[in-house]
């Protein structure tokens, strides 16, 4: 019993230890299951943010305000749908407002600038535009106020008590910022009015007229062009006034009027390889003129620019490989110079190569693409630089260049069935349209691997496979090819091989054969002959006094029915002991003995069971036994004895 308790305790302890192992895999690593994570909205951050945006608008920091709006991306915000909708509307309105105020600011500055230069006509046009913008800004500010009211009405049901304090503070700031927006609108209206008043004051100044003539009408790049004109006020020439000449909108030269109000200037046309250049003359009153004359500008005159256009034809492969040379060629055509022209190649805007054309305008260049060039479609740009000495324009051409890597083809010759222990031999060929040298091939199978190098496109691998428990079955073989060239991709090949483990198969078969032989040798002849018992007659006849020594000797007196039954039982039990080769130990109950001998007795077990039942009644029951039961016990015992005698002889 102690041993039983100890074993059970050990089993329970082991089980609990293993169960602990199963249940104790609780992580300390900080992440949570997103599907069961608690959802929580935070309203204060966007409200504070909008008040900050409006504050920036009120301070006329429109760029900063727009940058802050960019940070609020409603599509990704974790807020209720209604809030996201209003947020998107807020963003649109605020962006619109900042853009209009930005333009308004610029236009008002321009108006002030124009008025300071006495450019009254231009200033009047701009003032008209600014009036419209102020009205639009006022409308937007009103819309923002309405959206804010709507937002603040929607908010309360969503706000948790914990967040209420922060949200209330954010609401207060937002409303304060909105008030500042209204103040801003008023400020713009005041500024506009002030500028309009200033414009009215300049309406009494004298207007001026300025003319501009250019000769010749067509000029080669780098050659001289002459320009002339007059400056008058009410038909009276204005002498000694400085004029500004602009080309393509930029100040280029200065001229001074003579006594008769005329001016002349010459200049070298810049090397701008464009078909036309626009020129214009300006008069801006300075000093005392500011209180007498309005500014003026000439009409815009166009100069036709002459130069030799250049064209470029390039030839590039559609595909290129990292680490491999790629040829890029082309031809430059021009009526100007084509020899020694500088060519620049760019890949995705980064310098790739530089070369020059030959006497025929052709060029050819071998480009080595960097090993780390990523696979995909790239933009290849080839540019011919302009050449001023020959008045030849530059040009450029773009082409798509697909950079790729090739996957070598792997052919493997491996056995489909192998018998272990055996060295597996795998051979194969590697084919690639591009050079492939020194690639490493790794064979992996059953947890072991070996590597070799590909030699002239072929390889051979030997691998000693380990012996494992599996007797037969499929084992996966994996072959990895790792090329050393950057234009090759690694590849792998898998195959299932049927493996027969001969050693283990032999051991198992031997074990089965051994078991069979032993079973055959030990089976009792009687069982082989009659199929009844697992013991031989020799064994039954063999003397075995010890087997009977535990059985009590009963000698019943006259009328001792109990004694008769027990005597019959023990007599039969002595025989059964021999038949079944089971010793009736003193600590055994009658039922335990019966259960142990029953499998061996076969169909005679029923007789002994009945006899055991009678003996149990005799020993333990209060039931008064009759003579019939005594004679039944004797008959059963006699029958069993008869059987024993038959078997033993």
């Amino acid at each position, binding site marked *: 019993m102690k041993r039983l308790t100890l074993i059970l305790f050990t089993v329970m302890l082991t089980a609990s230890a293993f169960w602990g192992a199963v249940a*104790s895999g609780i992580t300390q690593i900080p992440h949570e299951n*997103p599907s069961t994570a608690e959802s929580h909205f935070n309203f204060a951050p966007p409200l504070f943010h909008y008040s900050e945006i409006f504050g920036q608008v009120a301070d006329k920091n429109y760029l900063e305000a727009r940058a802050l709006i960019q940070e609020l991306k409603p599509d990704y915000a*974790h807020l209720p749908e209604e809030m996201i909708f209003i947020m998107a509307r807020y963003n649109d309105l605020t962006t619109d407002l900042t853009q209009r105020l930005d333009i308004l600011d610029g236009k008002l500055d321009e108006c002030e600038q124009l008025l300071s230069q006495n450019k009254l006509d231009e200033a009047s046009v701009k003032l008209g535009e600014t009036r419209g913008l102020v009205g639009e800004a006022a409308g937007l500010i009103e819309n923002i106020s309405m959206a804010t009211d709507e937002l603040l009405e929607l908010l309360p049901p969503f706000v948790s008590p914990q967040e209420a304090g922060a949200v209330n503070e954010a609401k207060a700031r937002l409303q304060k910022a909105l008030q500042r927006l209204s103040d801003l609108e008023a400020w713009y209206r005041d500024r506009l009015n002030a500028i309009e008043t200033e414009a009215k004051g300049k309406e009494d100044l004298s207007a001026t007229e300025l003319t501009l003539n250019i000769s010749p009408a067509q000029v080669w790049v780098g050659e001289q062009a002459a320009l002339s004109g007059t400056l008058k006020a009410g038909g009276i020439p204005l002498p000694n006034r400085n004029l500004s000449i602009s080309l393509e909108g930029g100040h280029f030269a200065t001229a001074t009027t003579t006594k008769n109000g005329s001016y002349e200037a010459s200049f070298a046309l810049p090397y701008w390889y464009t078909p036309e250049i626009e020129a214009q003359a300006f008069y801006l009153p300075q000093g005392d003129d500011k209180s007498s004359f309005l500014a003026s500008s000439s009409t815009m005159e166009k100069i036709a620019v002459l130069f030799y256009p250049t064209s470029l034809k390039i030839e590039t492969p559609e595909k290129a490989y990292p680490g491999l040379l790629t040829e890029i060629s082309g031809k430059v055509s021009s009526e100007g110079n084509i020899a020694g022209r500088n060519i620049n190649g760019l890949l995705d805007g980064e310098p790739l190569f530089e070369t020059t054309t030959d006497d025929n305008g052709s060029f050819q260049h071998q480009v080595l693409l960097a090993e780390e060039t990523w696979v995909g479609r790239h933009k290849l740009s080839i540019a011919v630089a302009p050449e001023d000495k020959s008045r030849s324009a530059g040009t450029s051409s773009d082409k798509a260049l697909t950079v790729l890597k090739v996957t070598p083809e792997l052919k493997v010759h491996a056995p489909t069935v192998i018998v272990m222990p055996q060295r597996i031999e795998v051979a194969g060929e590697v084919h690639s349209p591009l050079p492939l040298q020194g690639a*490493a091939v790794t064979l992996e199978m059953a947890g072991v691997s070996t590597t070799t190098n590909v030699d002239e496109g072929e390889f051979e691998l030997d691998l000693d496979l380990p012996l494992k428990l599996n007797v037969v079955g499929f084992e996966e073989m994996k072959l990895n090819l790792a090329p*050393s060239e950057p234009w090759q991709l*690694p590849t792998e090949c898998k195959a299932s091989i049927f493996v027969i483990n001969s050693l283990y198969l032999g051991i198992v078969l031997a074990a089965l054969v051994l078991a069979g032989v032993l*079973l055959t040798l030990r089976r009792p002849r009687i069982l082989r002959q009659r199929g009844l018992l697992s013991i031989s007659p020799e064994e039954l006849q063999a003397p075995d006094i010890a087997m009977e020594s535990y059985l009590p000797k009963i000698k019943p007196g006259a009328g001792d029915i109990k004694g008769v039954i027990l005597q019959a039982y023990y007599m039969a039990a002595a025989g059964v002991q021999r038949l079944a080769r089971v010793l009736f130990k003193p600590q055994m109950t009658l039922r335990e003995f019966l259960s142990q001998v029953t499998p061996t007795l076969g169909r005679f077990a029923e007789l002994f069971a009945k006899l055991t039942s009678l003996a149990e009644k005799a020993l333990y029951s209060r039931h008064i036994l009759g003579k019939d039961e005594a004679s039944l016990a004797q008959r059963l015992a006699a029958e069993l004895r008869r059987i024993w005698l038959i078997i033993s002889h």
Partner: protein
Amino acid sequence: MTTRRLYLMVVLVAVMLAVLVWFYPSNSDFKGENPSWNGARDFLSDFQALSLNSLDALPATSQGTTLIVVPYIEFTPADLDKLEHYVNSGGKLVVLDDYGFGNAILEHLELEVRFTGSQLLDPLFDYKNKNLPKIINFAPDPATTEVENLVFNHATTLENVPQDQVVAQSSYFSFLDEDQNGEWNEGEPKGPLPVIADFKIGKGELILISDPSILISSMLGMEDNQQFLENVAQGQIFLDQSHLPEVPLDEAKVVLKISRNVLATIGATLVLIVLILAFTLKPIWYKGGQSD
């Protein structure tokens, strides 16, 4: 006979427990065998990635391969050398870390960038709550192609990252919760904060991601996490499992695997077969002996 039955029962229970431990799926974070929400089995199958139980198993040629490391166990100097060799010789090393030992790799590679180790919280751009921040600011980079937003899970941030190496940043509303009170306090860094960075080292590339959780099964399908990982992990992908902590279940599995490998040797198998035969044939042998 009773004792014999008890022995049988003990053996049976032991075998049953061993079978249970063998087949009971791992529940360890980032483990390739773990099929549940915090495992990396989906990652391994979706990306055809190989799990590595030792850095010794790295291929000799690292070019064209990607090694993903979740450094939750301290590195040995030898391991750090292996990682350095791997990336220098052309491999792409992706270090996903939040509160682990990623900085040891960065120190070894003599880089100034570091994982801050404090939690990144985002009260506005998040999935469900501020512990699951959404990353919505990306630099143009091959790694961010077709990526609009990522979802992190109890992430951290990077510091000392040169601006041109930053691949992704947290939102303007995020902050680093250095005092772990769940709220932004004066002095705590506010967003945008770098969370992904890319460095060229030798012939290879090092990508730092300040949250390893994006590869667990429950996070892989979130927003563009999978697309991002597809952009990052190219060629043959290896997932290092040797720097993840072992829970008792894993240890029990390791013991069983070792036992199986021992039993797989010829000698042990022979002994086992002999024992089984002896045990099963004992009664027959016993009866035979008594009859002689």
